[in-house]
């Protein structure tokens, strides 16, 4: 299905891309939403998802342009193609939303997440945790005689894989930032 890019202020946008594909398949999409960084804007976005029953798998937000006061919200969501199109169109209606990009369909993109893992253990388990962290290029940001805190950056799947490996080795706590994503290439 083609991308729908609702850009406020554009008059050339063709609704041709709205053609639906009414399928039941659940798809996972990463959306980048550029918004005015004004009070309540995140509440509007979250309220939209809650009010209309859409899923949020991951959500990150921060101001990315301090002079223009615009923030970038990255949302990972799942739904049928029709629901994904609705989500994008509904996001586009929010007055302080400037642009909605569907990174999943607009071309190749990179997704990264930063994650902290607390792993407690002694002896062989401790050594094995350290060895795996090295393979994953996780760095040790805190250590005691019987614990580590690892920092790992990567695609969500890599983080999931590392978490699985740490579980039997004494994983105590995990903190994840949620996904940040950008399209590849110069544009």
């Amino acid at each position, binding site marked *: 299905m083609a991308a729908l890019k609702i850009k*406020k*202020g554009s008059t050339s*946008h063709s609704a041709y891309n709205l053609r639906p594909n009414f399928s039941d398949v659940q798809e996972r999409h990463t959306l980048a939403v550029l918004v005015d960084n004004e009070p*309540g804007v995140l509440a509007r976005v979250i309220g939209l998802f809650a009010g209309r029953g859409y899923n949020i798998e991951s959500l990150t937000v921060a101001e990315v342009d301090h002079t223009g006061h615009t923030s970038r919200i990255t949302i990972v969501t799942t739904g049928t193609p*029709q629901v994904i*199109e609705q989500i994008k169109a509904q996001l586009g209606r929010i007055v302080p939303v400037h642009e909605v990009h569907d990174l999943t369909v607009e071309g190749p993109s990179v997704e990264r997440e930063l994650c902290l893992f607390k792993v407690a253990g002694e002896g062989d388990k401790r050594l094995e945790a350290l060895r795996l962290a090295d393979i994953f290029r996780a760095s040790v940001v805190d250590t005691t005689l019987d614990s580590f805190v690892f920092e790992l950056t990567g695609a969500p799947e890599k983080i999931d894989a590392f978490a699985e490996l740490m579980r039997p080795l004494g994983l105590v706590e995990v903190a994840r930032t949620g996904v940040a994503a950008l399209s590849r290439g110069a544009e």
Partner: protein
Amino acid sequence: MTRQMTGAEMVVQALKDQGVDTVFGYPGGAVLPIYDAIFQQNDIRHILVRHEQGAVHAAEGYARSTGKVGVALVTSGPGATNAVTGLTDALLDSIPIIVLSGQVPTFMIGSDAFQEADTVGITRPCTKHNWLVKDTKTLSGTLHQAFHVAKSGRPGPVLVDIPKDVQFASADYTAPKSANTSNYQPQLKGDIDEITALVELMENAKRPVFYTGGGVINSGPAASQLLRELVEATGFPITSTLMGLGAYPASGTKWLGMLGMHGLYEANMAMHGCDLMINIGARFDDRITGLISAFSPKSKKAHIDIDPSSINKVIKTDIPIVGDVAHVLEDMLKVWKARGRKTNKEGLAKWWTQIEQWRAKDCLAFKQDGPTIRPQYALQRLEELTKGMDRYITTEVGQHQMWAAQYLNFEDPNRFMTSGGLGTMGYGFPASIGVQMAHPDSLVVNVAGEASWLMNMQEMGTAVQFRLPVKQFILNNERLGMVRQWQELLHGERYSHSWSEALPDFVKLAEAFGAKGILCSDPKDLDDAIMEMINHDGPVIFDCLVEKHENCFPMIPSGKPHNEMLLGEASTQGAIEAGGAVLV
């Protein structure tokens, strides 16, 4: 040149600069500075309502009947929460209104201060946008932006929450021209390739139908004009939703009548059987589609809407056109004319023959027999006696609302004000007040049910105080008629709490407010009584006692397709299955 003024003065100045002449409101502690500023000027009339819900519906009536932005002013806390129903109503029906609410001073926000409520939080999901203004410097700019957002694109309600200290403090006033509205500019022109693709389908369609909605009216008078031109030029039949009545005249030869759950047989059958459906400013609401999987199974569907989220929301669209109705219709006509004004004459002739057969069912026929007034008859007489008058109609919600849509004829846009999307009982009376304020010399009639009318009856005080000659035409069946009808058809005739007990004597009630009351129960007296109502120069409560158990037909039961309409009492037995009962 900049001018210093207080926030309260800015509110009044901004309203004037935006061309506002009327504000509906109710004072309280958190808006006293604004009321003080209103007191000291004469350009803006303030209409004191009796409940904030009334203020918002009055602003809606004003907006819908003029095409301008309606304005309501309420205090913090309970004033703001009382405005919530009106805001939601305006959101669902895309009505441009602004609610200005007072708020506790900025330094007290978050302290659970007296009459503090999180107004922007409460109203976020029921406004198109809202603002809490924390600094007088940004107040006038925000107010202009609020007007811009309310009326641009798909119109809707907005709210500006103004803390009391912001109203007292002074700052430079920003004129509308200098206000920043650039980042909200919805697309107006439709994609020309899509429009051409639609015209191509129109040239060949054998069974086309225009399905129009409130978007035509919201787009402005030009849109209705262009629609009429297009319909006459192509000869295609046209139907409309409740919200779109009047955009195409009911006396027009191509008019099929309203469609939907209580729409006309010919309109719904045409929707079901068409091969090309051209949706202009409607939204495939569930009152229209019935069972989605069986909705107009053989047609290609084009959808013209200014809001991209309306397209493909419920019904798959073959030709989506995002744009303003007037802009798109203008281009459609241009392209169609340039390509030689073609239609499928032969196919159309057959289509009209078929439609005439459906029409011959005469689905709105009823018999006025016996000593009791049938509600349909009351409306038929109201129509007959007010036809050709400079007339505006509002309604409450229920059976009477549907009968009004079926039996009254609307020749022009902006003449019919009703709560469509939210179905708000209590809308009609305050809306009629708003309409009458905007059109002081016109006849304004609120077609009401007795139960709905009681929900905002306190506004009698407003009507009398401001000498607004609104006519409250109550079809009194002593029942929550529409609820009773559903209980009859879906809940085994168990009439749980669906009758109006302990009703007031409406004539005495009118008199208690200093207005005129008329009671009519005999069909023979009806015409004279209606004329007496019309000729009375002042507000009237007309208590029209009607048949208590009349059902509203045609009816597409929930969960049924368009071609399975119930046409009358005989067809109702076992018509609604358990699956339909879970729907509303």
